[in-house]
């Protein structure tokens, strides 16, 4: 049974439970990373304020809040059109505690490029009020894998100092669960329905993070909000590097994945435990490095769970659990094993 009451954490007397993030001009203090939960709750407020209209059980706001715990100072956020954008900024309200812009669906990376260029130009002419302003993009899988890929690739090639965080819920959830380049094979969506002939999406997920590695940008990583310290550390690294960084955060969607809203984090944990979504980071200096739970599994392969553990809790894979579809599950298992083994070969910290 899941405990539904939230822990009561005392905030400072007289202070509201949320705050707009204000950096007065000239402020130089770098915000420290905090991993002690109580300290974090007392000292830091997420950049996404309460009152937003994301669905109960959606992991995207968890990604955003955790990422904002890693922000080090003045930060501008860019969001692509998508669930996160429409449900956090319904005019005349906004849930964003820091400067935020949404331009269109496919151009978050290009918009961020322009912001970063403006910051540079202001700095050059002594008009920037801070030492440094960080630019962070949040975009969904549609705005990253598919329609926004050109802008993302262009931003990476040009070397803009921007951290791009993909929250990947594996389909176009904002328009009502249509397949994207990030949807896994055999998943049900409204445009890859499970029919009498075709059992869900026919194609595999595009390896977006590996594609970003191929751009040889300073930092690429995968993360999930279920492994929160790992995510926070990676976001800080992504911000600190000089140049583009990309973080692929898996983000469960209870509406689209068809699971209980209370198990969003558990589903993501299973994604990592089954090696469906391994946690790693990459930089030109270190190459691939496994992190967190995935490193543990690499060292102790008996911890690796079968793919069914990930599939069984999600309605979008329900058809795969029927006896006649055993072959399809086997195929998925083989695919996961192949990609995992491939990663083990590449990761320099995997046991040989």
């Amino acid at each position, binding site marked *: 049974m899941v405990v539904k009451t939230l822990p009561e954490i005392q905030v400072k007397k007289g202070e509201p439970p949320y705050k707009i993030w204000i950096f007065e001009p000239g402020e130089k203090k770098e915000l420290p990373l905090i991993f002690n939960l109580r300290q974090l709750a007392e000292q830091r407020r997420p950049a996404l304020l309460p009152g937003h209209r994301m669905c109960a059980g959606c992991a995207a706001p968890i990604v955003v809040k955790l990422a904002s715990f890693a922000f080090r100072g003045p930060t501008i956020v860019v969001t692509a059109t998508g669930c996160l954008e429409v449900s956090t*900024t319904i005019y005349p309200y906004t849930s964003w505690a820091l400067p*935020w812009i949404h331009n269109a669906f496919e151009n978050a990376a290009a918009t961020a490029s322009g912001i970063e260029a403006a910051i540079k130009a202001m700095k050059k002419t002594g008009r920037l009020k801070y030492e440094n302003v960080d630019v962070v993009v949040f975009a969904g899988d549609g705005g990253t894998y598919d329609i926004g890929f*050109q802008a993302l690739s262009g931003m990476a090639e040009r070397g803009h100092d921007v951290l791009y965080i993909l929250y990947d819920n594996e389909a176009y959830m904002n328009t009502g669960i249509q397949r994207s380049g990030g949807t896994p094979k055999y998943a049900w969506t409204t445009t890859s329905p499970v029919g009498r002939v075709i059992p869900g999406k026919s194609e595999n997920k595009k390896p977006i993070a590996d594609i970003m590695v191929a751009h040889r940008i300073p930092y690429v990583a995968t993360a999930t909000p279920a492994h929160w310290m790992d995510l926070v550390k990676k976001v800080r690294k992504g911000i600190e590097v000089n140049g583009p960084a990309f973080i692929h955060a898996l983000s469960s969607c209870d509406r689209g994945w068809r699971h209980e809203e209370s198990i969003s984090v558990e589903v993501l944990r299973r994604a990592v435990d089954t090696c469906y979504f391994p946690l790693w980071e990459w930089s030109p200096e270190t190459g691939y490095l496994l992190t967190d739970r995935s490193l543990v599994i690499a060292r102790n392969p008996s911890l690796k769970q079968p793919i069914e553990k990930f599939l069984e809790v999600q309605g979008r894979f329900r058809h795969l659990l029927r006896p006649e579809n055993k072959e399809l599950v086997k195929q998925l298992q083989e695919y996961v094993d192949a990609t995992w083994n491939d990663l083990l070969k590449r990761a320099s910290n995997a046991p040989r």
Partner: protein
Amino acid sequence: MSRLSELELIPKYPREKQTMINVNGDEAIAYAVKQSYVDVVAAYPITPQTIIVEKFSEFVANGETHTEFVAVESEHSAMSACVGAAASGARAFTATSSQGLALMVEVLYIASGLRLPMVLAVVNRALSAPINIHNDHSDAYLMRDAGWIMLFAENVQEAYDTTIQAFKISEHPDVQLPASVHIDGFFLSHTLENIYTLPDEAVYDFLGGPRKIAKVRVDYFDEEVNYALDPARPLSIGNLALYDYYFEIKVPQVLSMRKAEEVIKEVNEEWYKLTGRKYGNGLVDPFMVEDADIVIIAMGSSAGTVRSVVKKYREKGVKVGLLRIRSFRPFPHKDIVELLSGSKLVAVMDKGIGPGQYGALYLDVAASLYHSKSKPILVDYVYGLGGRDLSPEMVEQMINNLLKDLEKGYILEEERLRFLGVRG
């Protein structure tokens, strides 16, 4: 060249204090941008706009400007980056033509809807298909409802002048709308002309230095705050506004566009005092229109050709005039009604078509004239598509036909859309 009529006023920078340079239209725009203290230029090359990007890259490579040049991977990203830069409080510029503009259109509407001042140079070129690289105004017609101020230059000197003016107009506190400067592909972009240019500091002062950010009021701050992505006073820009607010956000855009009419006029006068050059009242540039029976309306470089033919016919005693539209958006309805109050026949020259409809310029002029007491006969001449040259002989042929129409006293509906210079 602009006509330096009646110089009662001595400009702050008379010709001898200006520098004459020999440039084509693209280079003139690149030079004007360099002088305009632009922070971000994000652009993608397309013929015939290419020289603007090339020339500007040279300025950057030689350290002649502080501008960040973002060599984006598409025009869509060019406009998107400009939106990001302008939202950060920077002065932004981009340039494109034809297909590039078509790709940009989505973001053009966003730039104006978000009320972000910036300047876009459009080197007008025909839209595909068939693919073509030469000039007509079909790309400009594509963006006419995008909420941008659209200014058409007649020559290279005006391209230089208008580019600088466009920043001032766009950033005016009452306007806060993006502005586009249009020059005709090849006819202006690749044609060398001697132009007078101001010293850098004169342009800097004219624009009031770097871009000033407009102030807005939001309910969670007591004081007015910068309308920009400012970590000191965070705002959300680009929110979702539904049926309960969208309308109220769009209407002020229309009102600001109306205010832009006055600002364009003011800036035209201010430029006159600075340089001794002005273009009509800024919105329209009439030539021998007062007593004309026949008035020809045109935009862009063709106006020069028409003007020379008008002069010739005036010498013969034919009462013909030219009304050049400089500001296509905001459209100068009032000026048109006033200036055409005595005319009997008005021929609109459209360098673009909308199949199933008249040309866009014709429609706008017709909308103006519906409210004029003296309703002149109105006819649409579509010409120059895909860069087809407009020769003086063609203009003469047009005027000769118009004289016959005038004598007849009417034009039938089926004859109201005419094609000038097409075979068969």
